[in-house]
């Protein structure tokens, strides 16, 4: 017979204040996931918002444009189709574990720019944004987790308990 007990039963056996703090920590993951997805969205917008310096061309709307260098993020001004297709959203519901949110770009042109075609060099912008978000993830999660636990203890007790993680 297994000695393991479910997490919910284990939490029920704890002090109510500790229970509330743990659930607050779990719920903070949803906030963290959302913030990281927003961060990725903003990074995508930022990375493509520059004027290209590689080759002039005429876009599908007949406007003169200049492409970005291969290997660099594509050049797209705010409001252009690539810029408009950037999105972020929550995937999991609040309080679910693990918390999942995502960011990205819709549309075939995004694939072609990110990975290239037989005739066009790749101009990665989603992969660098993913790397940027990953580098910030630990800090964001830790900050929200500690804040949530601290707030929960302050709310449930007149005595402040300092939690160091």
């Amino acid at each position, binding site marked *: 017979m297994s000695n393991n007990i479910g997490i919910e039963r284990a939490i029920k056996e704890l002090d109510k204040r500790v229970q509330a703090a743990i659930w607050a920590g779990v719920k903070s993951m949803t906030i963290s996931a959302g913030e990281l997805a927003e961060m990725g969205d903003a990074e995508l917008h930022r990375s493509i918002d520059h004027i290209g310096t590689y080759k002039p061309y005429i876009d599908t709307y007949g406007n003169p444009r200049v492409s970005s260098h*291969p*290997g660099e993020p594509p050049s797209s001004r705010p409001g252009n189709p690539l810029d408009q297709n950037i999105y972020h959203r929550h995937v999991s519901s609040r309080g679910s574990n693990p918390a999942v949110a995502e960011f990205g770009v819709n549309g075939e042109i995004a694939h072609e720019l*990110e*990975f*290239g075609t*037989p*005739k066009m*060099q*790749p101009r990665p912008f989603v992969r660098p944004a993913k790397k940027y978000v990953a580098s910030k993830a630990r800090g964001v999660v830790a900050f929200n987790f500690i804040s949530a636990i601290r707030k929960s203890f302050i709310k449930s007790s007149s005595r402040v308990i300092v939690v160091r993680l």
Partner: protein
Amino acid sequence: MSALSVGGAIRQLLVDANLPGVTAIYRDFGPPNAEKPYITYWDELRNMPQLTGGGVVRGRLREVQVDIWQDKTHENFDLGNLVVAALDGVKKIDATNYVYQIRVSDIQRLVSSQDNLIHHAISLEVYTKA
């Protein structure tokens, strides 16, 4: 004989893997009428400092992309895995910039029904001596 470039070393690993059916391996672009399946590789999509010490860059991280181009109607479903197996985790290659390790960081399979094309985009992180 002079050492291979980092891109050349990656190409050599792919050649040594004897990938079934692959007609050729090209740097950057294949020729316009290249027979599929063929492979292309982009060396140095990015090249960033990785190890620094004493004010000197001692190691660099190159981002390289290896692409497999196949006809959708004659896709070899194992080819992506074989390319990954040939490259992922390879260590200590004597190239112009000594390669410490190659890591496959991402694989995407992209389908274009319009062009009857399957594109595997395989992203590599290549850790080299500066």
